[in-house]
């Protein structure tokens, strides 16, 4: 495969003197075909398992999905021809599986748990279209990642506003399951924190690139660790306070952990100072511990985690976690098959505990595959961070990848009782629009960054003496 086949206007067939960079869009297309085929098979599987025939809505649901995926691919060819070829197919596969699981949970319920509303699948397909639309928009609008650096403080303000909004609004329109994390407009809900994560990641990157030299200055050395100077502690204290406020006022432990982790990891990447990492970790654990003692909602999470099967817990507070574990256990190594298990027994299985539904129906094998898909996306992101040259892009790529990894760790770890369960969404798989759209935007940013990283250098100047017009 040569770059001649890539229909990108930004790449001209170069002369023999310059090595040819491969865009690898065909690889992407092949992989996308696999993703679409897997989704279609999964869909058919649900129908055959539940009713012995192809699901009634398979064409209505699959057609828009395929069209959108193809549009995303064409947008990649047009706007980011050198982007990593795996990002889009992996995201499309996860998204497809999420739609299938929504369909499956809408098709069957039991005595205690009614199935999802019959329009749930349609809505999820609409969200998918919206997500891929935003993916294309991000690629089209942000042609050069460094442009974002200009909006460091604007995006920071927007991010903080988005996070604070539900806490400021009355509980009637912002509270869900004890946490104030959404804005309800009629039947439509938005979880602003999903978008805040992206805004803050960009903002952190801009800020840290500007201040990294100062932050990297060592202060006193204690036990072989260079502590930062006291006067430079400001930013981490602000981030810490903000994440604790989130925890206290919105009772949202998971997101608070993701924000704090994101900031500390980016601080570390920017300064290469282990002390920041340790400091951030210690501060978060101390804060979370204090919160668990001070606030019942947080303390309960720890009790559920440590003693899910004790006393009244299995039927009360820990019911959701315990039923999720039972579901995964019943799935065993190979799973019950899509449509063959009883994931609907677990409350909120379509959002927070969707990974347990996959564990139950696809088994350990399927769950590991899903985890590896996430791992692969994160790995592509981190690789992009290594490859890309300018520090802002490096920091942003590293931060976004780590955030995705952390989010997967927090929710999957929570559902499988590795860590306390906190209600955050599973990227691409959970039912719901905000998380899906934000996840697609994250993939778009990574694609943009990897395109920048892998794009061949401009052709050497041949006609010396003439003025060159450089476009940025």
């Amino acid at each position: 495969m040569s770059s001649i086949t890539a229909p990108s206007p930004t790449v001209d067939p170069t002369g023999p003197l310059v090595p040819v960079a491969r865009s690898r869009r065909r690889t992407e297309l092949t992989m996308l075909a696999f993703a679409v085929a897997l989704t279609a098979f999964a869909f058919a599987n649900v129908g055959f398992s539940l009713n012995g025939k192809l699901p009634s809505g398979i064409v209505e649901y699959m057609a828009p999905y395929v069209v959108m995926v193809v549009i995303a691919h064409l947008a990649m060819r047009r706007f980011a021809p050198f982007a990593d070829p795996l990002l889009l197919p992996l995201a499309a596969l996860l998204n497809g599986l999420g739609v299938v699981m929504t369909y499956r949970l809408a098709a069957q319920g039991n005595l205690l748990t009614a199935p999802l509303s019959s329009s749930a699948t349609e809505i999820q397909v609409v969200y998918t279209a919206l997500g891929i639309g935003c993916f294309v928009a991000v690629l089209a609008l942000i042609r050069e990642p460094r442009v974002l650096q200009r909006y460091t403080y604007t995006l920071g303000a927007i991010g903080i506003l988005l996070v604070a909004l539900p806490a400021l609004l009355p509980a009637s329109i912002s509270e869900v399951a004890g946490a104030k994390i959404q804005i309800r407009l009629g039947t439509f809900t938005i979880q602003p924190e999903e978008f805040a994560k992206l805004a803050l990641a960009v903002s952190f990157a801009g800020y840290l690139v500007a201040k990294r030299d100062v932050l990297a200055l060592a202060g006193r050395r204690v036990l072989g660790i260079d502590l930062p100077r006291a006067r430079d502690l400001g930013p981490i204290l602000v981030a810490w306070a903000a994440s604790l406020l989130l925890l206290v006022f919105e009772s949202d432990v998971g997101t608070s952990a993701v924000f704090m982790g994101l900031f500390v990891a980016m601080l570390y990447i920017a300064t290469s100072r282990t002390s920041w990492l340790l400091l951030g970790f210690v501060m978060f654990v101390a804060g979370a511990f204090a919160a668990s003692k001070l606030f019942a909602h947080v303390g309960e999470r720890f009790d559920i985690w440590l003693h899910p099967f004790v006393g009244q817990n299995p039927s009360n507070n820990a019911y959701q976690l315990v039923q999720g574990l039972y579901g995964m256990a019943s799935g065993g190594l190979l799973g019950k098959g899509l449509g063959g298990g009883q994931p609907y027994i677990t409350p909120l299985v379509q959002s927070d505990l969707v990974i347990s539904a996959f564990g139950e129906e696809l088994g350990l094998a399927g769950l590991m595959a899903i985890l590896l898909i996430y791992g692969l996306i994160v790995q592509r992101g981190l690789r992009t961070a290594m490859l890309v040259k300018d520090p802002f892009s490096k920091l942003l790529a590293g931060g976004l990848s780590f955030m995705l990894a952390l989010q997967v760790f927090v929710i999957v770890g929570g559902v499988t009782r590795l860590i306390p369960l906190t209600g955050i969404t599973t990227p691409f798989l959970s039912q719901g629009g905000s998380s899906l759209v934000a996840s697609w935007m994250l993939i778009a940013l990574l694609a943009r960054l990897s395109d920048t990283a892998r794009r061949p250098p401009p052709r050497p100047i041949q006609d010396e003496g003439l003025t060159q017009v450089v476009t940025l």
Partner: protein
Amino acid sequence: MNRALRRISIAVLVMFLLLLINVNYLQGFEPASLASKPGNSRAFYAAQNQYERGSIVTSDGVTIAASKPSSGSIKYQRYYPLGPAYAPVTGYDTLYSQTGVEAAENSLLSGNDSSLDVRKVIDLITGKTTKGATVEVTINSKAQQAAYSALAALGKPGGVVALNPKTGAILAMASYPSYDPALLAVHDGTQLNNNDAALLKAPGNPLFNRALQLTLAPGSTFKVVTSAALLTQSPSTTINTNVDSPTQLTLPQTTHVLTNNNGEVCGNGSGQAPLITAFAQSCDTTFGRIGMDLGGSALNAMAEKFGMNNPNLTVPLPVAQSNYVIPASLALTAFSAIGQYSDTVTPMQEAMFAAAIANNGTLMKPYLVQQVTASDLSTVQSTPQSVLSQSVTPSVAQDVGQMMRAVVQDPDGTAAGFSAANEGGLVIAGKTGTAQNGVNNSGLNDAVFTSFAPYANPSIAVGVIIQGGGYGATAAAPIAVQVIKAYLATLGNP
């Protein structure tokens, strides 16, 4: 920055490894221990639907519950050929829970009982499909059908229990209104939910097993206990001994006057009557007087010998406790002796009163499951007959039995309408009860009847309670007689 990024990559790798290891542990090693944790309905469900569920058949070979192959994701559909008539026996088997014999013998029916393990291995080797065990109940289909039809024809809520007095085998166990267990065996969750909600809201509470769970005042049928206590405590008393039988009995420390039904006189109106006459005419004044003389403790002891105040009776379906409460005053003791204080009994207890008398004073433990056979027809389990209690001596049993015969056979007896002359020579013995209830006895009377037949060689004892049925002789007794005749017809004698 790349050095830091590399380290972050390693941290991410560790995070994913931890997740993978944890998931492997959870799904690879923990399923067995999680399966036995509280509230794991998935494990229960899996075990429940692994094999074809065994059938439930009556002692005369009528199938009352069975499974057939089904097309959906659940491989077998439970069905109940005779539905409502047998619902108190079979109970139901939903996807999530069971009642009745379906619950009591669940592990054997579903094929998960450890006693079937060896056969499962044999099935595995011989390539046969493992099935759940078949449960044979002691029910006689003719008696059961007669009991349910009679209840349904009357159309009032009530329960009937028929026992074999010699063994304790339950011959019939009917409840009205009843329900079709098939409604709860549907596989569709929404439909099941709707059916369940409809049954819970249905008038007369059809899911309630009145045969074993309905507890109401025994009324005059408790005079069986009172007279048994008298004859046991005072050996000189015979059934022909004259006892105080005033037309009115003023209760001590009260202004309350106890009278007989409709203020009738007892016996010849002399104030004295033979015990058997007072029993046959069901004189409340006589037995109120006897109760006061005996005292609450003596009545309590005798009631317990007949199986009352036993919270743990199972057949193996749980039977509601029939209560005798020792009254605090003499006046209340008089009421308790005629079954009108806070004593309460089940239709099962009514059958047990008659069964004990019919079996020479020995009360056999009632049982519903005759035997359980595996799919290879070998017997897995059979219920041994056992004595629940020696209620009275054989001679006392004979005396009380004679008095019960008088209730039905004497022209003045309260149930004289069912005498041998009217029933083609069949000699039935019994005792009627008409329990008043409601504030100031304003509610409808509950009709009660306890009986056994044939008198000479009793082979069936029947207890009937009809809620709001009116007189025991008119509402309860005809049902008992129909059950008795239906059962005796199967034995080849009238």
